[in-house]
């Protein structure tokens, strides 16, 4: 029941977000067609504004937008004038989804083991070793890490191509660079959660009962410890799936991350709003999923 209600609420919330984005974007100074060169004549300027309905009142533009939205048409891009927003999303989203999903796997694949080991051997050398690798993801910003990886592994060692997208060798470096950043967070949060759980009375009980250490850790301790990780997974995955501006720029990957930032810079209202819609829908769905994951992970979170 609750699931149905939450699912039904999603379109409503996406609509709210889209509306807010629609109006907020237009509050920023400058317009999509401001250029260095002045328009040839006032008629030309008027024609341009009219073609994209920018001469109409905000209310009418909004209604036009809603009418399109209901039919699944997010409108033309103001900046990329031969493409509609749907075109751009259809091309860029699959790329970002792929990169993001692979980076998600990397983040968990690195973060969970290191956090796990860090909690179990807290304060001793395995904790240090794990922390060291993982903290690189926190202390070294992506715009330093990515070019550094390219410099070492692509240019000096020649193991990977320097940029572009389309083959497995081209996928590996960006995935690692993107994943490492999130791996750090996952690792820290898991380490925290697991240390917390290991102090709980039920663990003491289980040990007293003679349960093996490994089985204890994996079957009893890990699940509730994943709670902070899972809380973070929703927004993390949403961020990953909609692309990273820095990674896409450094590796010249045609994903949605670049469009997010550039559409703001160019005041491409429909593209920005379209991206926000996709992002918010994804975010809401993922948060719904993580909320339900809580209940599975830790039965104590079920509402009384």
């Amino acid at each position, binding site marked *: 029941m609750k699931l149905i209600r939450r699912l039904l609420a999603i379109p409503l919330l996406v609509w709210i977000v889209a509306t807010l984005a629609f109006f907020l974007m237009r509050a920023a100074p400058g317009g999509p067609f401001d250029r260095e060169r002045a328009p040839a004549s006032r008629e030309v300027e008027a024609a341009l504004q009219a073609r994209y309905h920018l001469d109409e009142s905000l209310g009418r533009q909004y209604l036009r937008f809603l009418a399109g939205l209901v039919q699944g048409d997010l409108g033309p891009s103001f900046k990329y004038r031969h493409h509609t927003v749907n075109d751009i999303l259809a091309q860029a989203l699959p790329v970002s989804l*792929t990169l993001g999903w692979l980076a998600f796997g990397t983040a968990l694949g690195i973060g969970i083991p290191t956090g796990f080991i860090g909690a179990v051997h807290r304060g001793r050398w395995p904790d240090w070793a794990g922390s060291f690798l993982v903290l690189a993801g926190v202390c070294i910003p992506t715009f330093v890490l990515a070019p550094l990886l390219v410099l070492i592994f692509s240019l000096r060692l020649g193991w990977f191509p320097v940029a572009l997208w389309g083959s497995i060798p081209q996928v590996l470096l960006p995935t690692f660079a993107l994943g490492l950043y999130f791996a750090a967070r996952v690792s820290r949060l898991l380490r925290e959660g697991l240390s917390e759980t290991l102090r709980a009375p039920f663990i003491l009980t289980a040990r007293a009962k003679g349960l093996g250490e490994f089985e204890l850790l994996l079957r009893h301790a890990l699940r509730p410890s994943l709670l902070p990780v899972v809380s973070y997974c929703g927004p993390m995955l949403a961020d990953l799936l909609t692309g990273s501006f820095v990674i896409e720029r450094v590796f010249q990957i045609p994903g949605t991350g670049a469009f997010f930032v550039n559409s703001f810079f160019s005041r491409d209202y429909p593209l920005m709003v379209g991206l926000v819609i996709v992002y918010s829908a994804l975010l809401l769905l993922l948060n719904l999923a993580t909320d339900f994951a809580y209940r599975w992970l830790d039965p104590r979170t079920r509402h009384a």
Partner: protein
Amino acid sequence: MRPLAPLQNAPASMHGAFLFSVLTCAAVGRRLLQSIQLIQFAFLLALFAGCRPLPPADLVLHNGREPETIDPHLLTGQADGRIGSALFEGLTRYDPVSGNAIAGLAQGWTLSPDGRTYTFQLRTNAAWSTGKAITSTDVVWSWQRAVNPLTAADYASQYFYVENGEAICNGTERDPGKLGVRALGPHTLEVRLVNPTPFFLELLASRVFAIVPRETLEKYGDQWIRSPGLPCSGPYTLEFWRVNDRIRLRRNPHYWDATNVQSAVVDVLAGDSAHTTLNLYLTGAVDFIIDKDMFPTELAEALRERPDFHRYDYLGSYFIRFNTTRKPFDDPRVRRALGLVINRQRIVGRITRMGERPASHIVPDGTGGYHPPAGLEEDATTARRLLAEAGFEGGKGFPSFEYSFNAETKLHEHIGVEIQAAFREQLGIRMELRPLEWKTYLNNMSKLDYDLMRSSWIGDYNDPNTFLDLFLSTGGNNRTGWRDEVYDQLIQAANATLERQPRFELLAKAEARLLNVGAPIVPLFSYVGFYALDTNRVAGVHGNLLDEHPFWAIRRIPR
């Protein structure tokens, strides 16, 4: 043109995905993680199904930023223009060596004695990529479309030199058919100009005069470029367009000069990062970096040493605008004083370091054979005197003001720091730096909401007028608030003069007045371009003032 699936090379990627999943599963061995990995694997499998690797191109160019539009009449950016020119041609086209206009779709022309009427002969073998012939009615229709205000072409102002062009563009004349161009026969065209225009043939090579397919436009409207079977009048056709990735062009078999089009398939890449572009070039993934913005300025000195980095003078100027409607910059003495303390050599030598020519004049030297007069060269004593005359002896009482610039690159900030130091040390006045985001920067410039603003201008054609007409009182690109009747008259007189020498003398007089008397601007330097070109790898590229390197002349040299 359906975009291909995002990942090619299915077999390799499937193996890779499987390996990847196994490794991460093995790392932890948790049921939760295993299910995630399984979903991952399934996802990748689904995505890779039916992918094919992309066949390689004959030439790979890096064109800078993703083009906004390649409709030749609508485009304004250089990157956009290169692709526009590859697909659509006009009566003249750019010579790959000099950048000057040479015969394009027109094989010859005659000019009437009064210099106001051209008669063009179209090539009889001129044809669209569909095979259909290009006739003079196509030319007439294209021009009428470009000048029509409903088309909203930014460069429609180039048609002002043609009879009724300005009137149609302003809306005063409602019928675009009244434009001074008519078809005399299937391959003969007559063009009537308002005044003799010495650079008219140069103008005709520019994109706004390109010939576009009427039926396609009438059928598809705004989305005509990506319609299937697009007829192209230029050397290439559009094979596919992947946003933010690449545009693939294929040689147009019906192009009149198809035998001289060097590369059959050209990939035009798009990207934002100069460093990545450089890496792609150094590793051979890109043959030639055609866009001068994709040059990492931090590496200026190191790159200049390399034999494959070629420097050329470029038709552009970097200058500072004053807002002459704001105190104290409404006083020309103040403006001149500020202009007199700037050390251009220092800026060019320490900040930009690309070998630009420091310039106190706005028109780059040698533009169309013109040699500009000197502007305000460095002279701190006179500057201090002028400032004192204006009432700010030793800088006392001078309000602190702001230097606005766009923030996406640090270059403008660095130049600003130099200027800030010069003003402080030489004149004792305080300038703050104000970085702005791009659209805000443009907005402030057009609303005259600034004190001093960093600016640049790239010339549209190889003639000094492209720079000097910026500062006409009526010019929309003036953006300084400066008005001077004498200047306006000099420019208009010059453009009515046919002979080169007297015309250049008038222009020089106008420029001298602009730089030394009115001084609403302070020019800093003339741009240089760099292109990364290994002449052992690529042929057909030559440096020229206009930075025009038509794709059809370029080819990769086989190893």
